[in-house]
């Protein structure tokens, strides 16, 4: 809340007015919040037929898509009801209203009397007349229970059919697909979201849905649900049918006016209200999706908030403000599928003009309609970054004559803060929660808000669909001196997201191949910068359980050797801890002879490098060596350099050699954001240079120092102390926790020394060795999973990654072609 809610006084001499609210949804509770601001002498009872606290219904699709948990979308916690002395009755459905006796009756048999009644009963799904539509396996998608049932049924591989290609149907479709279902959307009309989009915009959206892997069938009427006992197929007009294990009916909503009828209110489509939000009964009010104002029933969030403010004034005896209707605006909440629509976008009616932009290769479509020099409507598909500008033009009815050249593309402002500076204080930033720029600025100044999380808590801005997040961040940046925006650097222009965002997208959207990511979120092509980065992220996020695409890897990672200036390769077998044997050395010598290796060299990492190997010889060289890959060619775990420690050295106080071998065994074959080198030394003399390694263990009398972020390359940096522990096992565990933390949080190509400096060693410690046992366990579990999926790359000599991995081509003979 932007201002503390006034404490309600206990009833004095005058008896408190009994206000009964039917409906514990967004409209009812938002209206009660507004009523409380007037500090009335009200005794409030709220009935909710669901058993949940008030939650943000528009985020149900995020729950279905696994982006949010049911708890994340709760708007008013139980403490809010308690603080405001509201009697909350959950799981009770009001089934009757007596407008004369002024009582309501619940389905539990209870009767409650009221002085004033507020109906906020919302809407109910329209179930089209489809034969056998109540069959097992057919769902609607309207509340949290529906969402939970869907989540229970949705499993990888099952076939889901969504009937209805509107906002809700498409969001349900994407959610089910993220859960692994094969999804088909069947839409009666020939355009998706025809209430919000014109046919061209609908086409762009259909293309985007198809690229996500969702089948869209248009202009198709569903006639029956077939199946023995439970749904097996869905049948269409004309007789065609498709298989279905699960059906979601999302064919629209209609106002839930049942209680309005019982109360004998005037009803058309919805409960009729006037500009003061009064119904035909002086003590009965209604708000939200169940009402009809000026012949319009709304199914969006913004109108119910505006209605709630007016109703609160009227019902508390402060009658004056009026509701004048809301410009309809909607956004599709599917990550990566940006769709915005507002106002009247039909340019064919009453002398409207149209301005349009399309770029099919980028999937961007923008259309504005203008009337008398003012914006009348807007459609944006593929890029909704300007939606707040258009919304404001619609609301303020700005004359656009002087801006005609910049309607679709604002002139880039040199000053990044200018964009927000130009916004008037009254402009709405968060359309879902109705928060203006002025409210946000006041929260920052008066309440010391300085982070996005605090802003959400204090004003609720950006806690709805989240599309105004970047705008909120810009405001914070402009007003809060110490505000630090989360890393915004994008990888490259092929896929313009910051790495942190991208990791979140890949995770929540269950994307498992580079090409899929590029097609949905990028330009479909990719380049030498983003493809390896995406390959790394997918491997790390899915712990190796992803679709490995070698065309998205550098040549070194296709043939598991390091390309040299003449196109030959360097081969370095793994020699854990720098320890080898006479048998290994003999095989290395034999390989050097057999393949006429021009140079055999001891590396700086205590290993042996065979330089000048031809690509065609690589698989046989690995077989002849009979040793694992040393990964000396990749952004991955290189090696552990060790000294001889207690085993032979006079000064050694820890068994560094064996600790190093064990460390190498635990991390080998894994990818990291950049190459990762380690060292273990048995005493502080540091012979194996552990303090200039990415991860180092420094043995001391009775303990190990675990150090991280060291470097001796282009940059020289002494590693920071992460922690000191007593046992070798604890040292290995601390190293593992840091190792996985770096893998999950560093940007691609960020060495540990840059990572540690960027994040700060205190935060690194807090998130790793000082983290809760559960958090540490989570890191270790994911590391273990990755390790289970990893393998020695040189085994691909036998188990090829793809059949043509090492295939050479040459001009073909006539007889080969003529077969």
């Amino acid at each position, binding site marked *: 809340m932007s201002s503390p809610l006034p404490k309600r006084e206990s009833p004095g001499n005058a008896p408190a007015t009994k206000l009964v609210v039917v409906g514990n949804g967004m409209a009812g509770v938002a209206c009660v919040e507004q009523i409380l601001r007037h500090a009335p002498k009200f005794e409030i009872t709220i009935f909710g037929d669901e058993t949940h606290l008030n939650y943000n219904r528009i985020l149900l699709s995020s729950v279905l898509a696994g982006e949010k948990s049911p708890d994340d979308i709760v708007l008013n916690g139980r403490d809010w009801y308690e603080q405001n002395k509201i009697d909350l009755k959950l799981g009770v459905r009001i089934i009757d209203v007596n407008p004369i006796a002024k009582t309501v009756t619940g389905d539990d048999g209870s009767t409650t009397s009221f002085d004033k009644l507020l109906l906020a009963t919302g809407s109910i799904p329209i179930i089209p007349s489809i034969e056998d539509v109540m069959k097992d396996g057919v769902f609607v998608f309207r509340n949290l229970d529906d969402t939970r049932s869907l989540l229970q049924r949705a499993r990888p591989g099952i076939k889901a059919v969504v009937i209805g290609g509107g906002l809700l149907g498409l969001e349900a479709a994407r959610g089910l697909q993220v859960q692994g279902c094969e999804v088909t959307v069947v839409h009666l009309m020939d355009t998706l979201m025809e209430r919000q989009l014109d046919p061209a915009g609908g086409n762009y959206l259909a293309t985007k849905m198809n690229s996500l892997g969702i089948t869209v069938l248009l202009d198709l009427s569903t006639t029956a649900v077939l199946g023995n006992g439970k749904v097996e197929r869905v049948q269409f007009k004309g007789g065609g049918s498709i298989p279905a294990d699960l059906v979601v009916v999302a064919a629209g909503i209609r106002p839930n006016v049942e209680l309005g009828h019982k109360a004998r209110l005037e009803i058309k489509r919805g409960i009729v209200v006037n500009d003061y939000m009064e119904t035909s009964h002086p003590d009965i009010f209604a708000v939200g999706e169940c009402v009809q104002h000026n012949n319009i029933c709304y199914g969006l969030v913004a109108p119910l908030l505006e209605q709630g403010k007016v109703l609160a004034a009227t019902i508390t005896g402060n009658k004056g403000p009026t509701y004048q209707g809301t410009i309809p605006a909607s956004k599709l909440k599917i990550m990566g599928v940006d769709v915005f629509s507002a106002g009247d976008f039909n340019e064919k009616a009453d002398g409207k003009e149209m301005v349009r932009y399309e770029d099919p290769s980028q999937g961007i479509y923008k259309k504005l309609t203008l009337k008398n020099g003012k914006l009348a409507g807007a459609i944006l598909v593929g890029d909704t970054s300007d939606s707040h500008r258009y919304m404001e033009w619609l609301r303020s009815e700005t004359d656009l004559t002087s801006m005609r050249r910049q309607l679709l593309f604002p002139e880039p402002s040199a000053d990044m803060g200018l964009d927000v500076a130009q916004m008037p204080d009254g402009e709405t930033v968060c359309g879902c929660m109705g928060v203006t720029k002025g409210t946000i600025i006041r929260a920052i100044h008066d309440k010391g808000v300085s982070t996005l999380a605090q802003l959400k808590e204090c004003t609720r801005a950006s806690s709805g669909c989240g599309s105004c997040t970047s705008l909120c961040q810009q405001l914070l940046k402009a007003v809060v001196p110490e505000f630090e925006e989360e890393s915004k650097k994008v990888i490259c222009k092929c896929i313009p997201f910051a790495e942190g965002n991208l990791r979140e997208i890949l995770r929540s959207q269950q994307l498992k191949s580079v090409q899929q990511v590029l097609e949905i979120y990028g*330009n479909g092509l990719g380049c*030498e910068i983003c493809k390896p980065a995406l390959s790394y992220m997918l491997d790390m996020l899915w712990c190796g359980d992803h679709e490995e695409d070698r065309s998205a890897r*550098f040549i070194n990672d296709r043939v598991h050797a390091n390309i040299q200036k003449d196109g030959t390769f360097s081969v370095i077998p793994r020699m854990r801890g720098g320890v080898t044997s006479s048998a290994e050395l003999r095989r290395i010598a034999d390989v050097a002879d057999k393949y006429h290796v021009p140079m055999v060299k001891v590396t700086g990492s205590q290993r042996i490098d065979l330089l000048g190997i031809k690509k065609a010889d690589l698989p046989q060289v690995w077989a002849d060596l009979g040793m694992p890959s040393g990964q000396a060619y990749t952004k991955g775990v290189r090696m552990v350099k060790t000294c001889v420690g207690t085993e032979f050295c006079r000064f050694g106080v820890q068994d560094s050699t064996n600790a190093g071998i064990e460390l190498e065994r635990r991390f080998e074959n894994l990818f990291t954001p950049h190459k990762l080198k380690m060292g273990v030394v048995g005493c502080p003399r540091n012979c194996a240079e552990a303090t200039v390694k990415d991860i180092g263990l420094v043995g001391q009398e009775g303990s190990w120092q675990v150090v991280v972020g060291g470097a001796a390359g282009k940059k020289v940096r002494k590693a920071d102390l992460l922690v000191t522990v007593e046992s070798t096992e604890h040292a290995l565990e601390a190293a593992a926790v840091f190792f996985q933390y770096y893998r999950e949080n560093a940007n691609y190509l960020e060495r540990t020394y840059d990572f540690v400096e960027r994040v700060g060693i205190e935060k690194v410690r807090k998130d790793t060795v000082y983290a809760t046992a559960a958090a540490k366990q989570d890191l270790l579990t994911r590391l273990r999973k990755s390790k289970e999926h990893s393998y020695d790359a040189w085994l691909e000599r036998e188990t090829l990654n793809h059949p043509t991995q090492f295939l050479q081509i040459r001009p073909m003979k006539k007889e080969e*072609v003529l077969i």
Partner: protein
Amino acid sequence: MNHAAEENRVWIAIARAQDLPLREGRVVAIGDREIAVFNLGERIFAIANHCPHKNGPLADGMLSGGVVVCPLHARKFDLETGKGTNALSAEQCLETFPSRLNGGIVFLAISKQSATTDGIPNPCLDHGDGEFWNTQSENVNR
């Protein structure tokens, strides 16, 4: 390509399309020249294999759409035109070779002079007499 040039070249079968992995390059030696061949799904491209900078093997390069990136020093070349596309390679242009697909076999067009196929017994050549060629174009996409 004009008629004279058309007459002066020969089509050489170099691989089954299915042996060219999607979006990766492979090198083929024809006589004493090396050609990098790329399968872009809807089309196959062929370009001289050696980067003019330091001879880097372009067949080992990663693709950035229809552009190959040299694995040694990241010079970039357009597969269609052979032209350098980044600041490092801007002034350079590499030879490219027309490709055709017939019966699942990839053919490259090479000028007759350089089409020495010594060392390949009985190479499959098509001199344009239609022996191997039909006019139907095929889609490589698998």
